[in-house]
């Protein structure tokens, strides 16, 4: 017996020792190390082990988020566009020939000039290598490029496109089109496999090392940076997958900066703590559930009742603790698309939902608490995944549907399986958090509801299509075609509002709300850490050591 007690006590002591060990590591972290150089520890999610913009989308984003690469133009928070590597531009009458002047004096981090030729080479190489299946980025998705030519004397790059663009600067802000030093090698002949971790950009920081196993990297100051002083001599980008771990790491001082903590309780705790600054912004992302029109929700009455049964406001404010702002339109209300003009006839009204179902004979005949349609219990399959509170929405909605007698299975999947089931149409509701105006306007995003008599339905023989929900509305299709053809800013905006209204009237998409991105910093050590509305940019020169 005594032996037992001793062994239990030893076990407890070891366990306690291990636990206490977790909290005491952060003493050497801080804004200045022994040699007086400034250092930042940034705990973040790492989506990619490559930084080559041609490799795949997440890789292109990562180069920009880490402050390594830059594009010709950049988005401001209100989705207007500022010059970046290009300081001016001209456009032809037909909106197909665009001439960009490259800012004078810009250098790559290796000291070589980033002139018109270097920019043209970088873009040409991107389009060239992405024709091969080895590279997964899809630069043609946003820019239907015909040719890119440099004029060294004028330091301009001329981009010719096959289709007219209202404003090509928007698509060029997308991280695919970051400018890297390719040394004139347009086919990667001398760089087999691309520039995985050897990307040379024009950003304030340079990738010094990257550990694939821990997915963490070290950045150092770009001594040749063109746009002012770089605030940190070195930055450690630490991969932290779990939100609670991020919160605990910044509390303990292991890191001074982190992004997007989405567990509400952790975020609220940091918000209420004076030692930390939480920058929160409703950006360009929307959380929503696709409604499968080929399934049981193709029934108009049922769909309307489902929409009325869901209290979107409470889900946003309470269930996900304000991580989302509620609104019925598919585009965030912070964007300039006149969301106040939208009218939602199917807002939350539980009693009306019950009445509507009762009046239309969708009732529970067998007394099991679930209504039947065509003799079968209504049980919706709701696909979701654990990301940005999406599964919390799904569970909240499940409970609200139960209250009006509609069954719902919540399937928490991994993102790949969710995507697969979405493509196969194997769902009733499937929620995601997508960027709406990734290239400055919602053309690509709104294509998801463009039906064109089934032409744009994602089926096995039409795998290029993007309409995963089989929604097909003639009015919407017409508006979308008009929108696509129009080059007039005001008209385009007006058409977007009309399209949004059609989607609302049809209960075509179940909008959860507009996602708030966050960036959290330790006030005593870091200043200027604001999350931009476009989350292409994380580490900027605005983030500085606190005075």
């Amino acid at each position, binding site marked *: 017996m005594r032996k037992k007690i001793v062994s239990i006590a030893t076990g407890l002591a070891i366990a306690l020792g291990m636990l206490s060990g977790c909290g005491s590591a952060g003493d050497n972290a801080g804004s200045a190390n022994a040699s007086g150089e400034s250092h930042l520890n940034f705990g973040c999610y790492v989506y990619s082990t490559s930084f080559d913009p041609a490799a795949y989308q997440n890789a292109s984003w990562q180069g920009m988020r880490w402050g390594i690469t830059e594009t010709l133009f950049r988005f401001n928070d209100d989705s207007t566009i500022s010059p970046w590597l290009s300081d001016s531009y001209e456009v032809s009458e037909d909106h197909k020939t665009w001439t960009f002047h490259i800012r004078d004096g810009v250098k790559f981090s290796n000291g070589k000039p980033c002139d018109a030729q270097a920019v043209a080479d970088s873009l040409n190489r991107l389009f060239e290598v992405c024709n091969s299946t080895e590279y997964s980025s899809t630069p043609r998705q946003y820019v239907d490029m015909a040719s890119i030519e440099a004029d060294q004397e004028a330091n301009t790059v001329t981009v010719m496109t096959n289709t007219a663009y209202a404003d090509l600067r928007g698509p060029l802000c997308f991280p695919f089109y970051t400018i890297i030093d390719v040394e004139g090698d347009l086919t990667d002949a001398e760089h087999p496999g691309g520039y995985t971790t050897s990307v040379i950009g024009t950003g304030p920081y340079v990738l010094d090392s990257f550990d694939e196993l821990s997915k963490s990297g070290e950045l150092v100051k770009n001594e040749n940076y063109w746009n002012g002083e770089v605030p940190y001599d070195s930055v450690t980008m630490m991969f932290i997958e779990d939100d*609670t771990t991020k919160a605990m790491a910044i509390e303990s001082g292991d890191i001074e900066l982190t992004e997007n903590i989405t567990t509400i*309780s952790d975020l609220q705790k940091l918000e209420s703590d004076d030692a930390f600054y939480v920058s929160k912004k409703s950006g360009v992302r929307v959380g929503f559930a696709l409604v499968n029109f080929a399934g049981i929700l193709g029934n108009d009455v049922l769909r309307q009742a489902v929409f009325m049964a869901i209290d979107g406001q409470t889900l946003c404010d*309470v*269930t996900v603790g304000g991580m989302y702002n509620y609104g019925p339109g598919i585009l965030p209300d912070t964007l300039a698309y006149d969301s106040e003009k939208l009218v939602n006839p199917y807002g939350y009204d539980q009693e009306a939902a019950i009445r509507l179902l009762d009046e239309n004979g969708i009732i529970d005949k067998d007394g099991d608490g679930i209504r039947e349609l065509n003799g079968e219990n209504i049980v919706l399959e709701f696909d979701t995944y654990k990301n940005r509170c999406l599964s919390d929405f799904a569970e909240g909605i499940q*409970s609200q549907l139960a209250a009006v007698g509609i069954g719902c299975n919540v399937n928490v999947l991994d993102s790949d399986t969710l995507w697969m089931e979405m493509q196969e149409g194997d769902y009733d509701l499937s929620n995601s958090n997508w960027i709406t105006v990734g290239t400055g306007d919602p053309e690509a995003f709104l294509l998801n509801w463009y039906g064109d008599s089934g032409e744009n339905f994602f089926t096995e023989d039409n795998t290029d299509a993007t309409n995963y929900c089989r929604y097909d509305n003639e009015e919407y299709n017409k508006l979308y075609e008009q929108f696509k053809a129009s080059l007039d800013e005001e008209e385009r905006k007006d058409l977007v509002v009309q399209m949004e209204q059609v989607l609302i009237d049809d209960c075509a998409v179940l909008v959860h709300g507009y996602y708030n991105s966050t960036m959290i910093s330790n006030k005593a050590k870091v200043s200027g850490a604001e999350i931009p509305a476009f989350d292409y940019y994380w580490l900027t020169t605005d983030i500085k050591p606190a005075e």
Partner: protein
Amino acid sequence: MKKKQNIFLKNKKFTVYLILAFGIILTAVFAPQIATHDPGEAILTEALKAPGNGHLFGTDKLGRDLFSRVIYGTRASLPATFALVGSIFLIGSAIGIVAGYFGGWLDAVIMRIADMMVAFPGMVLALAVAGILGPSITNAVIAVGLVSWPKYARMARSLVLKIKYEDYVEAAKVTGSKTRHILIRYMMPSVLPTLVITASTDIGGTMLELAGLSFLGFGARPPVPEWGLMLSEGRSYMQNAPWIMIFPGLAILIVVMVFNLLGDSLRDVLDPKEEE
């Protein structure tokens, strides 16, 4: 009757644990009477309320009463655990007895399959099976069952091998007893006590494994009030609303402990060697 009373009086520990175990089973049976709320009723505006104010254990992220959910949790965990232990006990022992008694190629085939199953780390294989079948309590039971039966089969086989050549078995064969009769009349009784003890001590561990699968998202699916799943749901609120984890965790701790102690004391009762 008198003899029975003696057993309970003589083994006080066993009696106490047995009463506790019955208490847990009764909780499951009378859950609707004990629970103060409907465990599925979500009032979103009442989310994350601390214990007290009409909610004995507080509420979870969807505003559901945690006390009622923990009570109803017995209904998810106990039947699944009993069904699982019961079925691997029956199937495993039957396979083991058959393998041991008949020997030859049948024994070789069965035991090689069992060896294969044992060669895998149990939980990993269970995760793989549950992953393939899809998440549900039934599938979790199947997954854990698939990796747990060899233990019973191997034990039953070795016990059968021990007595297979005893004189009384030979005598039964000589006097013309049918194989089925020998299996049921002679083999079964000699393997049962050991296997029953094993099964009863396995209840706790099995319950933990099932809860573990649910915690990882391979078992119960929301909104089923299952303790492992509730722990998983509460994980992200650990700092601000710890009660969401504490109470389901306590429930698992208590139930697993009671059944483990019951199994241990049952061994004391059935194994005369330990008697003083």
